[in-house]
């Protein structure tokens, strides 16, 4: 278990070191306006939404599902909140807006859960419905405009600091909460059981439907909060670009973290590492000055290298000669 996480950690460290070599100031931290400021802080702050969505996604994937709609749900949450806030600078309005948005997200999660657990539709296609329509709904809410708000309370969610960025604190808190809930209760085990062998779980009396339903709702709420972070970070809701392709990043984070898309055993720590690796990669591209044309090739090379490092088989193949010699 610990051994398995060693390699993602190494990959992350290697990426960070690459930054250090190219930009020596990357690790520099200073206090700016009462909070930490520096490259690492950016990684945490910008990685927070992906991490949050990836946490929800981990549980969904553990039940053998997948949720493609998280990006659209994030956009809806952002749109609803910003439209609700409008020009108001009130903290109360912001809170109310966020509450409405998250309740809506929970409802969207129920909807996904209904399609998957209730109607038995394959998750990828069931959530594709909301992925497509959801962005339309978000645009309907904003009427295709970017809704800019000027609300300090709202700004805190994505751009605020309590020494560290508020967004990463939220994501880590959710991570801790999920870790605790799944470990201290039997939820984690039951989720894995449903993911590994749904029929055996049913015959053992596990409420698979309720569990599947729960994880989709949870994933949607996570996506909603992430959407709030993304839009709060720039104080604007953009129904088109908020959370665009974030489902791919989240799934990638989960998978790099060692959770199999085939369901079953999952690792939240792995997901945390996966998210950090992905965000570090993105930030690295900006900091070390990879030309825009080469960015994708660079990403491809890094992703595949990270995976090769992690794969026991690849390592065995690489170290084979050494073993043979010694």
């Amino acid at each position, binding site marked *: 278990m610990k051994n398995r996480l060693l390699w993602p950690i190494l990959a992350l460290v290697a990426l960070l070191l690459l930054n250090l070599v190219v930009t020596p100031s990357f690790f520099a931290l200073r206090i700016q306006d009462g909070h930490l*400021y520096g490259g690492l802080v950016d990684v945490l702050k*910008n990685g927070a939404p992906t991490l949050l969505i990836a946490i929800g996604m981990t549980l969904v994937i553990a039940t053998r599902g997948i949720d493609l709609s998280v990006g659209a749900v994030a956009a809806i949450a952002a749109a609803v909140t910003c439209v609700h806030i409008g020009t108001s600078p009130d903290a109360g309005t912001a809170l109310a807006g966020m509450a409405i948005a998250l309740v809506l997200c929970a409802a969207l999660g129920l909807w996904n859960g209904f399609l998957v657990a209730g109607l038995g539709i394959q998750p990828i296609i069931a959530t594709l419905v909301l992925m497509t329509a959801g962005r339309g709904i978000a645009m309907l809410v904003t009427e295709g405009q*970017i809704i800019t708000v000027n609300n300090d309370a709202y700004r805190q969610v994505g*751009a605020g600091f309590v020494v560290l960025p508020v967004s990463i604190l939220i994501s880590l808190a959710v991570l801790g909460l999920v870790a605790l809930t799944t470990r201290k209760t039997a939820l984690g085990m039951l989720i894995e059981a449903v993911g590994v062998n749904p029929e055996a779980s049913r015959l053992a009396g596990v409420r698979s439907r309720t569990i599947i339903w729960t994880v989709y709702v949870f994933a949607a709420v996570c996506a909603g909060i992430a959407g709030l972070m993304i839009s709060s970070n720039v104080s604007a809701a*953009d129904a*088109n*670009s908020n959370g665009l392709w974030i489902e791919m990043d989240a799934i990638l984070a989960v998978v790099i973290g060692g959770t199999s898309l085939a369901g079953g055993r999952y690792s939240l720590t792995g997901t945390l590492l996966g998210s950090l690796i992905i965000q570090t990669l993105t*930030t690295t591209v900006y900091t070390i000055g990879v030309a825009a044309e080469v960015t994708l090739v660079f990403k491809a090379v890094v992703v595949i290298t990270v995976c090769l490092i992690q794969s026991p088989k690849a390592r065995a193949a690489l170290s084979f000669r050494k073993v043979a010699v010694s």
Partner: protein
Amino acid sequence: GSGSGGAGSGTGNGSSGDTITMGFAQVGAESGWRTANTKSIQDEAKAAGIDLKFSDAQQKQENQIKAIRSYIQQKVDVIAFSPVVETGWDTVLLEAKRANIPVILTDRAIDSDDTSLYKTFLGSDFVEEGRKAGDWLVQNVNGPTNVVELQGTTGAAPAIDRKKGFEEKIAAKPDIKVVASQTGDFTRSGGKQVMEAFLKSQPKIDVVYAHNDDMGLGAIEAIKAAGKVPGKDIKIITVDAVKDGMTALANGEINFIVECNPLLGKQLMELAKKVVKGEEVPARVVTVEGTFTQEQAKAALPQRQY
């Protein structure tokens, strides 16, 4: 509720009646700019009494082609569309030509040797926009200047052209150097993230050139978070002139905006009527576009519609 009334059908062969049927294949609704563009076209079509068939291609060129093909099938009187990419239109436009349906391009020309494929092209010139931005910079800075560039989506035509035009102009002054250039995908979050990274990796940044207002607005947030003053410590040039950008310009956070006008509707409808009647139209109609400094922005802001 349902946004799709029963209207819109039942036209089919509009050539017989007086009302003109226009098929408009929009790229998508990927930005506020585009939405304003769509709205202008829809409003002006209504005002001009033109029956508009509108389709949104969800940012995919192939969908646009499909829509155009379906307009040909529906025998509309005139087809208009915004080709975000220059290439890839020949086949379907040839079909339109065979079906005797005139085509108007908006926004951008196409790259085809056969100019008979379309009647006219109405739109802005992205390279020119880049040049305007470059011009302003050349005239307004002295001494060594480090510029960071926030590019649009890699490969997107406005991104390529605005970069090209800009580079063309600043080449005249070797003091001006683009020290970093990265794509911010035309979004605020993208602009902010890239700018955050630039602020850490570049020791000295004097100017930000953003390919659209949104990335510029994102960059402003990043600059503020770094404890610098946007517009003063770091000058900002953007393109588009949407309302939010203009507000920032009026507030002194942006220094210069090159306009890219989405309100093509009126001109388009006029052209369409002429084209359907068979009148001669100029092969190229340039939209009226200007540039804004901070003072001009303050004056123009109250009338800004989008």
